[in-house]
């Protein structure tokens, strides 16, 4: 029953797939119940967001935005030679493009607020990443990051010291203490046989790692396997399959709309949008609740290459699809009735000393630690390749990489290792109870405003960075300040000097005044310009008392000046001591006095 006039909405198969029903994120039923992400802010951490474009402007949140590359509050993307800085705008459009504006497309959470943090368009350091991950973290609920270390099949990298500290700080103090939600895209290294176990953002426990599947539900050519991927959602596939249609920038070659958004970059924002829908129905979900709901509701589906495994907790998992395909209807209905999971628990093995040589392939070194009673193997199988860990054939990474030349190749030594497991202390019964509770909610019976479980208010956590004046603002203020000071001094000086003139003229009152020399001719012609003080009218009797002490030139000059109309009034008053009043001037009319 949902209809939008956005011209490209019919092509947005990921929202509502008419060609292959079911091959979409199943979100229209959620929209019909007015769940659109209202009250939630998603920030796209990328190369900028063109927030002036029609599809984004009404949902744009300047208070959640910042530009770390230029150090100013406006994250507008800067056109560059490769015409490449449209990435952040496209991700933002997937999340919150405005519907029914007859422009381009519709976002998953089109009722949410969208912010931008521009950080990828320039030199990036660990400290900049740390600032980005906690920027406005009491305003931004979800951080959508469609980027990561190189996917070249060789790089092993992730958040460094500060980035890791910021992720931890974000899940502890972000979003009023419920924890920021960090959504990251799994790797795009499929062609290099890469694996995102080598990507510290993807396999961090603080992030929601999202992979991609094409419209047919298969792992696309660019996607890579990853044990720590939580779930997958749709994106583009190979040439024969449709990509994601979304808002685009309109700078350089941009038209404001694109049908070519693809890669895991396109999948992560869709997940961020679905999480925004969850937070609308239940704002007090913690960062761990969100992860658990994804695991409980993601759907396994038939894909012969997926190699699904069912683990002891009863969940299906695959290195290609995580715990399965995200489904907005299931996520939101589960969120609506979700009660918080137990605190994060970790199980740490002792440091296991080995000091064993790692033989050259095809032989291998296998070490076991069976301190954890578990019913099935596969929990801790690692294949260590030289000093770089992780399980994946790394065709492009010769294990001798980084060693001195081949001839002096030394056998690697495994000194020691330790296994840490993170999770929730739940018994199988707890899990089965929760699963049946969720299945009963999938009818949508709770998805209306009258039903709401109690939701504790968040903590008031001040954002420490306050408002820092940007250099431009500072310069402007200084300039205005100087200008003001200069004019104030000038005006004071002028008033002082003119007062001094008047004072010097006042001296005449007590004795005869000598007018500066005036040519008789000018006077006869009445062409002289006289500076006379302003005159105000007073009634005669008052004047009587006043005029005795006050006599002014104006009494003498008013009639002819008035007639001539060429008199100039100025501040410097000049007064004359007149021997007597011209009675006729007073005759019957108000006298002008100064």
């Amino acid at each position, binding site marked *: 029953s949902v209809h939008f006039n956005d011209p490209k909405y019919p092509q947005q198969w990921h929202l509502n797939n008419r060609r292959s029903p079911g091959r979409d994120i199943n979100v229209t039923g959620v929209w019909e119940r007015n769940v659109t992400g209202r009250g939630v802010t998603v920030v796209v951490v*990328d*190369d900028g967001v063109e927030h002036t474009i029609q599809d984004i402007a009404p949902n744009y949140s300047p208070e959640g935005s910042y530009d770390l590359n230029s150090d100013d509050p406006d994250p507008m993307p800067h056109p560059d030679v490769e015409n*490449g800085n449209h*990435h952040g705008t496209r991700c933002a459009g997937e999340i919150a493009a405005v519907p029914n504006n007859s422009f381009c497309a519709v976002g998953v959470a089109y009722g949410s607020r969208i912010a931008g943090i521009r*950080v*990828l*368009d*320039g*030199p*990036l*350091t*660990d*400290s900049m*990443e*740390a*600032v*980005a*991950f*906690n*920027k406005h*973290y009491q305003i931004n609920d979800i951080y959508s990051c*469609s*980027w*990561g*270390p*190189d*996917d070249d099949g060789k*790089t092993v*990298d992730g958040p*460094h*010291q*500060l980035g890791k*500290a*910021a992720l931890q*700080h974000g899940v502890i*103090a972000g979003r009023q203490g419920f924890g920021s939600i960090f959504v990251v*895209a*799994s*790797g*795009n290294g499929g062609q290099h046989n890469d694996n995102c176990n080598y990507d510290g953002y993807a396999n961090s426990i603080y992030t929601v790692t999202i992979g991609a599947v094409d419209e047919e539900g298969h792992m696309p050519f660019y996607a890579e396997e990853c044990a720590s991927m939580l779930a997958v959602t749709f994106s583009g596939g190979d040439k024969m399959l449709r990509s994601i249609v979304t808002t685009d920038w309109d700078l350089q070659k941009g038209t404001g709309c694109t049908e070519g958004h693809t*890669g*895991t*970059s396109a999948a*992560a924002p869709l997940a961020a949008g679905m999480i925004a829908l969850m937070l609308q129905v239940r704002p007090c979900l913690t960062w761990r609740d969100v992860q658990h709901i994804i695991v409980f509701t993601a759907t396994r589906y038939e894909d012969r290459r997926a190699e699904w495994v069912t683990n002891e907790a009863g969940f299906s998992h695959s290195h290609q699809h995580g715990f399965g395909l995200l489904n907005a209807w299931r996520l939101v209905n589960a969120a609506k009735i979700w009660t918080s999971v137990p605190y994060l628990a970790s199980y740490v093995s002792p440091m296991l000393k080995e000091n064993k040589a790692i033989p050259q392939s095809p032989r291998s070194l296998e070490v076991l630690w069976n301190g954890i009673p578990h019913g099935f193997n596969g929990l801790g199988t690692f294949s260590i390749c030289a000093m770089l860990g992780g399980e994946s054939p790394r065709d492009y990474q010769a294990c001798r990489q980084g060693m001195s030349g081949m001839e002096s190749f030394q056998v690697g030594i495994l000194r020691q290792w330790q296994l840490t497991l993170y999770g929730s202390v739940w018994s199988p019964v707890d899990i089965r109870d929760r699963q049946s509770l969720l299945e009963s909610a999938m009818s949508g019976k709770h998805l209306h405003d009258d039903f709401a479980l109690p939701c504790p208010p968040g903590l008031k956590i001040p*954002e*420490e*960075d306050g408002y820092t004046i940007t250099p431009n603002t500072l310069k402007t203020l200084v300039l205005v300040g100087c200008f003001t000071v200069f004019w104030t001094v000038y005006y004071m000086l002028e008033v002082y000097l003119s007062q001094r003139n008047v004072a010097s003229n006042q001296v005449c009152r007590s004795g005869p005044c000598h007018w500066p020399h005036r040519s008789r001719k000018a006077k006869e012609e009445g062409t002289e310009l006289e500076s006379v003080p302003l005159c105000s009218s007073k009634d005669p009797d008052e004047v009587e008392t006043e005029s005795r002490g006050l006599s002014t030139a104006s009494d003498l000059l008013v009639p002819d000046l008035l007639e001539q109309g060429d008199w100039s009034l100025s501040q410097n008053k000049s007064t004359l001591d007149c021997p007597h009043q011209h009675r006729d001037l007073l005759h019957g009319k108000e006298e002008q006095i100064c």
Partner: protein
Amino acid sequence: LAGTGGPDGQGPGGPSWAVHLESLKGDGEEETLEQQADALAQAAGLVNAGRIGELQGHYLFVQPAGHRPALEVEAIRQHVEAVLAGHEAVRWHSEQRLLRRAKR
């Protein structure tokens, strides 16, 4: 790709260091840390560029503006490392390197 990774990549404005200072107990902790950071930056011949985001006790020290020959930069780097490594209030420090990040 944001930045050019690798050991030679330096931060946007020349070498910079992130420092984590031992947080002192007691009231007014933040400004004490701030003062401590200023003093430490000065001792190392750097400028305290302020706290790193929301991370308590983490500060970024940058080199005063101005271009310097490579040799001098290397000497400065060693001096800074010696000062930071030798200061008892410094829990952790690291020179900031450019990170390579790819849009996906």
